[in-house]
């Protein structure tokens, strides 16, 4: 009996040892992706790959370049590493067009290792790019898109909303309203004409403006459009004049915006017409291009961020690029990178060997769940439609073209921001 007990004890100890050794030596269970739209698996030493979709050609290129610089500053800050993996960018030029965005997006999403897309510059490119991105399960975050159609209009999902699309730029649905409110209230304009270029951004702003202006009792006497690349603006300007418009709201990009401005000057009947554009032209190259012709011109654009972080970032910008920023929109790009990386750090599953598994839906969800993220452009809280920035817009007036963008941005005529 004693022998049996001893045998049992020994057997038990041996079994425990075997179990413990088995447990100790057991390899961790291999990662199984349960994300509904898939995972990005990054092998050790492999880089984390991000697409960058910006307008890098044409006259909108300065805006795209600023976005690119903001991204680069953010990467520099994190030493171009995330979770121990190097970060590489696939930079594509969307030409600030829908078709360009679509095709550029295709180039990025063609690589299944692409985690997310940083961009785009133009909302028009973002419409097609986001659609392609969304279908591919990626996440896209822009520091510059502001078209309401991309996220939400009137608190409702916008028709071109795509899941996984985020932006740190403000929804310009508010910008049109702000502009309308300002011109109606402060300038006494009751007849206004609008020109869009058919771009979603442009149309979005125009529609926001027209809607708010009409609601304020104003009359939209002309709602015209130009095509990108149109050189002759006299017909449309003639129409503006003949419509009796007191204000021409033309949220266009360069060079159409430039041409509107320049061709309107000296045109009969245009002397009293107030010209107002958008943030796309709040850019050094525009100011440089039009020079003093833009004096007195109004702009509606996102409020400029301020603070220590911004100042430091500006210093970094200058130190890095040996020139001051031509706009502030690089801040949005900078924030977009940090916001995206923070979300990735939250959701990424890192194995001992360094392998990363990033659930695509998880990443989107993490971004949707972002609350009070400290960005340089302000605290970012993403809503269900992907808008993460507070919609604070200022109406600016160019009084001193020599003061440049900085001078323009400081010459705030109106804002929807809550005044302290």
């Amino acid at each position, binding site marked *: 009996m004693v022998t049996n007990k001893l045998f049992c004890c020994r057997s038990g100890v041996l079994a425990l040892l075997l179990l413990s050794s088995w447990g100790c030596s057991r390899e961790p269970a291999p990662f199984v992706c349960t994300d509904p739209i898939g995972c990005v698996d990054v092998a050790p030493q492999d880089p984390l790959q991000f697409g960058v979709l910006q307008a890098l050609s044409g006259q909108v290129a300065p805006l795209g370049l600023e976005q690119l610089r903001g991204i680069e500053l953010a990467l520099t800050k994190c030493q171009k590493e995330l979770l121990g993996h190097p970060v590489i960018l696939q930079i594509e030029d969307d*030409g600030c*067009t*829908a*078709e*360009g965005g*679509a*095709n550029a997006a*295709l*180039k990025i*999403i*063609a*690589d*299944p290792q692409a985690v997310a897309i940083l961009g785009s510059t133009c909302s028009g490119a973002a419409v097609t790019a986001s659609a*392609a991105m969304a279908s591919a399960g990626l996440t896209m975050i822009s520091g510059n898109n502001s078209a309401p159609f991309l996220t939400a209009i009137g608190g409702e999902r916008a028709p071109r909303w795509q899941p996984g699309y985020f932006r740190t730029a403000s929804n310009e649905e508010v910008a049109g309203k702000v502009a309308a409110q300002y011109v109606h209230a402060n300038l006494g304009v009751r007849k206004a004409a609008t020109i869009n270029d*058919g771009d979603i951004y442009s149309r979005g702003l125009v529609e926001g403006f027209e809607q708010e202006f009409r609601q304020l009792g104003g009359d939209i006497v002309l709602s*015209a*459009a*130009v*095509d990108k690349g*149109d*050189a*002759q*603006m*006299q*017909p*449309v300007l*003639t*129409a503006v004049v*003949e419509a009796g418009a007191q204000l021409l709201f033309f949220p266009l990009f360069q060079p159409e915006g430039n041409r509107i401005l320049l061709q309107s000057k000296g045109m009969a009947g245009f002397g009293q017409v107030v010209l107002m554009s958008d943030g796309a032209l709040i850019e050094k190259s525009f100011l440089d291009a039009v020079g003093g012709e833009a004096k007195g011109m109004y702009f509606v654009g996102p409020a400029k961020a301020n603070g220590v972080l911004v100042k430091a970032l500006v210093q970094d910008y200058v130190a890095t690029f040996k020139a001051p920023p031509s706009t502030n929109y690089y801040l949005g790009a900078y924030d977009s990178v940090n916001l995206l990386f923070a979300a990735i750090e939250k959701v990424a599953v890192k194995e001992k060997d360094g392998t990363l598994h990033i659930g695509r839906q998880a990443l989107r969800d993490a971004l949707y769940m972002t609350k009070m993220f400290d960005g340089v452009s302000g605290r970012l809280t993403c809503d269900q439609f992907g808008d993460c920035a507070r919609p604070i817009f200022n109406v600016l007036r160019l009084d001193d073209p020599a003061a440049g963008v900085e001078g323009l941005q400081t010459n705030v005529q109106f804002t929807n921001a809550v005044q302290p």
Partner: protein
Amino acid sequence: MKAFEFVMALWQRLGNFVKNGLSIKARLAVGIAVLLMLTLTNAVTVLVGRSLLNHAAEVMADNQEIERLVLEMNYGMQRARRLHSDFFLHAQEIGFAEAHEKYAQPSVRQISQVISLSKTLQKLVEQSVVGEGLHLNHVDVNLYLSFAKRFADTSIEAVEVFTGLHAPIRGMEPQLEGILDEISAELNRGSESFWLFMDMKSHIQEYRISRQRPEMQSAFNVENILVKSVHNDPHVDESRRQKLLSLLDQGRNLAVKILVAETSIKSQLNDFSIQALAVREVSTTLAKMAKKEVEHSQQKIHSIRSLVVNIILMVTLTGVVAAFWLARMFNHSVIRRVDRLTRFAGELREGNLEVLIPEDSGDELGQLARTFNLMSARIRGLVNNLEQKVAQRTDELVVSEGRYRQLFENSSSGVIICEACDEGNDFIVRDCNRAVETIEHISREELIGRRVTAVFPGIQEFGLFAVIQSVWKNGQPRTMALGYYADERVSGWRENAVYKIASGEIVCVYNDRTAEKQAEIEKLAMEVKLQRSRKMEALGLLAGGVAHDLNNILSGIVGFPDILLMNLPQDSELRKPIGIIKDSGQRAAAVVADLLTVARGATGRREQAGLNALVLEYLASPEHLSFVARHPQVECVTRLDPDLPSILCSPVHIKKCIMNLVSNAMESIDGAGRVVLSTSLEHVAGQMARENNVNPGEYAVLHVSDNGKGIQEKDLEHIFEPFYSKKIMGISGTGLGLAVVWNSVVDHGGMIQVKSSPAGTVFSLYFPLAVQGEGDVERSVEPGDFRSRGEKILIVDDEIMLRDLAAAMLSSLGYEVEVAASGEQAVAYCQTQPVDLVLLDMMMEPGINGLETYRQLLARSPNQKAIVVSGYAETDEVTAVQALGAKRFLKKPYSIEQLGRVVRYELDGNLTEI
């Protein structure tokens, strides 16, 4: 250079290690392992190379397929674009339906094919067999696919938009044109409104040409004025005005839509341009990559082939070197040494045991060489020892062979070795020993090589042949009981043992038991003889005792008549009765003599005599004459062989035999008859000699036949027994006649054959022939020759009558005679008075007998002559006396002649009578 030297030194050390440090088995194992390893290496190289080549070929094929697909995709994409462009270019020219069918639909099909190709390419690239470069560029493939899809979408959309724009009747452009026509129709020509309209229309036309939106915007601007003009035109009634305004509004809306559509088309065309650029870039990359992969695969295949070929060549070369090395090693290590061992073995085989193999290695052959050397040394020792042993054994064998040869040759048993021939139907004699020669009276040379049945024709009848055949067939030794073999040449009793030896030859060992058988016969005869001797001895004892006394008595009866007759005058009447007394005495003496003959044999003096003469002497004797007289009707006929040789015999006894036989023959004849006495020379041999225990040879035969009544069968066996007589005892015979005949003949070394039948009886007496010079016939001397020559004779006899008779006879012959009544007196006398001769009686009582007397006489006078006188035949005492020197014996009763002759012969030293 140093490296080469190092390699060579390493090779040398390796070679030395392999040569000296490894066994042949290990060397062979190493060699075979090396070859096997090289073969395996070759095989693995071929397999790996083949696998790599296959893989590379697959990769190349895939890459070629990719290249082909890329090119096909590019071609398809370009063609789709061209068709798409052609649709836009020719749609209005050839009509939308035809353009759709001719360009749009093929373009869609083409792009669909491109998509399909892209998917195929995508799958192909995703496979692991494609090159790494292409594998990494799967993104481009995905992108290509995406672009293709996008092209398909956008191109269709563009076609739709274009169709919506330009389609006949339903298209916006035709509709706008229609509206413009309606407006034109409604407007009054020459009116302001008309001219405004025309201006508007011209802007629209400009737009249609330039597709520049500002032109349309100008048209819109004019339209705005036109609308005002229509409102204000007084020449236009209200309905027309409303219609015109409506048409203008419709036209503006259509124009706006056309602008949007045109924008869309522009965007799509731009999209196509971007896509084309991107696709071109991607396709170029893919094509380059595929081409590069193909080239890489080709280069890889070439490299693999070169590598495989080089490896195979190197391995093969190494294999050849290894094989050469192995062959050389095998040649050096095995073949040469095996040859050397073979030569060594050959030397050993030739008997050269002094050769040594160099023990140059510690491997198996070295050990074998060492073993060979040890074996050689041992064999040398063994050979030497063996030679010694062989010599010793040879000597021993010679001795043994000699021994066994002697045993064989000297064996008293006959040994015949024979070999079967004619499948066992006969046997050939291969060898025999001397005993066979002796037994069979045939030389070995006559036997060897001859058939058994030829040498021994009676062997089958004898039964031995069947035994030999049985042993030859069964191999079981057999013995054959004692049997009698006889053929024309030899005969005798044989006892055989037959066995088969390993050579298959049959050995017959046999003993000639003839002697034993004869001895047995003789023994039987001896027993008969012994029985008869005992019978005779009893008779002899009886007769001897009687005969001694009778002889003593008869001595006077026989002796004194002679003295009386010598002293009687011739005319005395006493002469006849004295003569009868003498005759009766002599007849009595004869009876006594017969008794003695039967009891002690025919001991008479032997002399050569002719049998014929003896027959004739008998026929002339008084006894026969008296028989003839008594049987006058019996004719007695002689048929004598005149050339019959002499025999050595006691004539008295022979004539006695003749007398007894003739007497019996005559007496067996009742009435007239014939008795035939014939002689012949016959050869007695073989069984007849053995049965009668006589020596083979020539015999003088006396046949006495009669034609009497014959002897009954039951009597034949007893006729020679003493006192067995069918006659009336005392009247016609004494019962001693045939007994005397038998004993006389046998004592003469002869034999008797009796053949009797109712027609008569034949007695045949066989006497051996006398040898030349033996028993010459003593010359007959006259009694006067026995007279004294002055010698002095002492007569010693206890019987006074016999002393006086002897003294009277010797005195009558002139001898000086002295007598002594005992041996003691004779000895005493001779001590003082020498005598020339002592006539000594053997049986004297009391006192010393004749033998002792003679001894004492010899003691005084060693040369003392003496003659032994006895009434018995020769006894042991007589023999002893004769051995002392008294050679002559005189049997009582004796006549004066007999006494005178013996005395004279003894005194004269004549040895004839001895």
